[in-house]
């Protein structure tokens, strides 16, 4: 077993490809916990950021600056009574959140955090992601129907119609990105997620800027469609609070409801990672072609550590500005400890980066590389996550028929046009 563990370490392919089930399992666990933690962090961040958009403070009571609020929420949700409406279809009601969760987590199998930092590299990676994430709507539809209540049913109908319509535009935008992968000597493209990022690496350009503005248009279409696909504002009609109370999960509460939330946020991260991999160069660092060379590599490899140090600085500033009062002592200590942990992580990451540069240690260099890859991928996703919050704070909600007409009459023709033009330009250039 140890052998099997060690034998993979030198490998440069994903554990799935290497056939190393043990490592694949470890990756699955890492990704599962990582995504769960990200969802929790996102929960806190969304409440905080939204609050600051809206001249409020957001959670402030549970832990310093409400840092422990997600945990308190989770405990509350776990302890809540599990209510199944008496007229509901019990089996479907029970299985619906699981399907949603399953669909949004399965997608992470092929998310390429790095050239070898994925559970598996399927050669139909992007197809798999789109397909499986489209299964998520089944959970919503089943939940809405099984609740045996009018608002959830309408919510489910809305979201299913919405997701099916936007999937078309989304798929066409994706195809135009995939077309770009075939612009190489052999003329064969790839559907593999890792392959798509590597194609960008080889062509020295993010597909966002490829054939400008074609790539950008496709990207924008995808970015809009992915908001609709995840039922977020301004396309959150399925759970439009002011119209349908809570839409498809009106009848859900406690743990089951939290599973829906988990699935929703996991799906948000998943679609963002598609966008990152397809248009934003995946794990590639910014300006990897312009600012190439060992020195630049080193500068950019400092970023992960510096990010954590920056967060630590914010936390330290918060600690200093805490009111000097005995009531705040525990909070001050907690925030200080949080700052200490953050700066510890930051220093560790800096140490790895510096060590990899200075020493000749293969393992250190390899892990520094892996860290950089994951860091840039995650940072790009974080941008999207922030955008999701920003949209929510800024825009009113679309109406259903407007949503449909935007999907079918604007997005679909544009994405078709972009696809055709990309193909023509590709033929001329390639």
């Amino acid at each position: 077993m140890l052998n099997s563990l060690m034998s993979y370490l030198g490998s440069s392919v994903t554990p799935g490809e290497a056939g190393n089930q043990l490592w694949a399992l470890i990756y699955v666990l890492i990704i599962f916990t990582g995504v769960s933690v990200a969802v929790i962090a996102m929960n806190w961040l969304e409440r905080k950021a939204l609050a600051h958009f809206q001249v409020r403070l957001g959670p402030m009571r549970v832990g310093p600056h409400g840092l422990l609020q997600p945990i308190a929420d989770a405990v509350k949700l776990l302890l809540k009574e599990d209510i199944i409406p008496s007229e509901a279809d019990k089996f479907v009601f029970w299985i619906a959140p699981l399907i949603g969760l399953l669909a949004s987590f399965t997608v992470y199998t092929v998310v390429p955090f790095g050239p070898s930092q994925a559970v598996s590299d399927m050669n139909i990676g992007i197809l798999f992601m789109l397909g499986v994430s489209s299964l998520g709507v089944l959970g919503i539809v089943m939940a809405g129907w099984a609740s045996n209540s009018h608002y959830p049913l309408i919510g489910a109908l809305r979201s299913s119609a919405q997701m099916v319509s936007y999937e078309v535009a989304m798929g066409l935008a994706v195809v135009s990105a995939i077309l770009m992968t075939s612009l190489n000597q052999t003329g064969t493209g790839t559907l593999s997620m890792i392959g798509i990022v590597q194609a960008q690496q080889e062509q020295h350009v993010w597909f966002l800027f490829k054939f400008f503005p074609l790539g950008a248009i496709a990207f924008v279409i995808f970015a809009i469609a992915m908001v609709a696909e995840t039922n977020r504002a301004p396309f959150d009609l399925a759970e439009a609070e002011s119209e349908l109370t809570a839409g498809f999960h009106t009848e859900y509460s406690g743990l089951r409801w939290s599973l829906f939330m988990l699935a929703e946020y996991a799906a948000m991260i998943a679609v963002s990672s598609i966008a990152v991999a397809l248009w934003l160069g995946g794990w590639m660092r910014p300006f990897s072609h312009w600012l190439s060379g060992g020195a630049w590599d080193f500068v950019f490899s400092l970023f992960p550590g510096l990010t954590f140090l920056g967060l630590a600085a914010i936390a330290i500033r918060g600690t200093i500005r805490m009111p000097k009062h005995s009531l705040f002592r525990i909070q001050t200590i907690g925030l200080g400890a949080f700052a200490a942990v953050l700066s510890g992580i930051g220093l560790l990451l800096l140490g790895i980066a510096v060590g990899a540069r200075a020493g000749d240690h293969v393992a250190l260099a390899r892990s520094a590389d892996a860290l950089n890859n994951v860091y840039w991928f995650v940072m790009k996703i974080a941008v999207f996550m922030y955008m999701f919050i920003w949209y929510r704070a800024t825009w009113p909600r679309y109406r259903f028929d407007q949503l449909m007409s935007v999907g079918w009459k604007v997005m679909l023709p544009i994405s078709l046009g972009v696809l055709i033009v990309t193909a023509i330009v590709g033929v001329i250039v390639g």
Partner: protein
Amino acid sequence: MTAETKNATNALSNLDLETPEKPYLDSNELIINMGPQHPATHGVLRVILKLDGEKVLGTECVIGYLHRGVEKIAENRTYTMFNPYVDRMDYVAAVSNGLGYCQAVEKLLNVEAPPRANYIRVILTELNRIASHQLWLGTHALDIGAMTPLFYTFRDREEILKIFEKYCGARLTTHAFRIGGCQYETYAGFEREVKEFVAFVKPKIDEYEELLTTNRIWLERTKNVGVISAEDAIALGVTGPVLRASGVKWDIRKALPYANYSEFDFEIPIGENGDTYDRYLVRMAEMRQSLRIIEQAVERIPEGPIMAKVPKVIKPAAGEIYHSIEAPKGELGYFIVSDGSTQPYRLRVRPPSFVNLQALDIMVRGLLVADVVAVIGTLDIVLGEVDR
């Protein structure tokens, strides 16, 4: 005109709520119950929607959940004792309610409030109109899905409530006026604070508009939604910004001036299409006009008494009077019958929200469920006033 009235009448006839037996594999007409517990019905309004898919075929409002028998209470209280009760009707515009009531009783007594009292009344009432419109804007935008304006408007409304609190000790149900004038003299720095507020809130109104007025989604959600023609609006007795957005330039402050509104220079903003967007614009413009009135009033506020000579025990001569004012929501009228005793023999409140709500049905027919929410929001109803 007759034809339109007839249409409106037909539209208001009862819904056929029984669904006939449908053939196999046919989609049903959906009867949806919206409220009384629903986030977007602004209280305890219950609307029964008859839907075809998401299209509204008809609505029926079920109201009365907040009925407290205000008119019956009035018959059992003296004129003075009843004064605080009116604040509880339209609780977001309590000052307007109080103004209407006090003036109606003053009219019955045939007394006039002194000029200084009138100025204070106008300042507070217009502040309250802004507060009411701000609350409307926030909740209306929230109904349409824009969360953020709600917090902006509440932040700024807070400043108005602070002025109220300093003036009379209460923030919401102010009971600011007494029959014959005002009970309280303004506090030191009242004029300065009001001026500061005007300077503070002017850019804030621009800020709300920045978020919404040219927002594509906002335009699509509000333009041509809940259209009501001027003829229908008049036939349905709709008043206030809803009527003005349909193009009828009618404001009681101008048409039948009360207090000292005739001394101020302001405009009546009107709309053209009578849709939700026009109502939005009209209310935004009204806030600015209110600021204009406040600015003039604060500049010109005279010295002098704040109470007219009113007997300690108010006993109007037998007779009846109808007095109405332009409340933020429309025409707020009081019809008081006096039998010469200390208590009103009959007091009838003509609530703007109640009458405006009646227009909901013809405004939403043929629209989608999401529009029902938008239209309820744009009517700016307060259930405390609808149900009384």
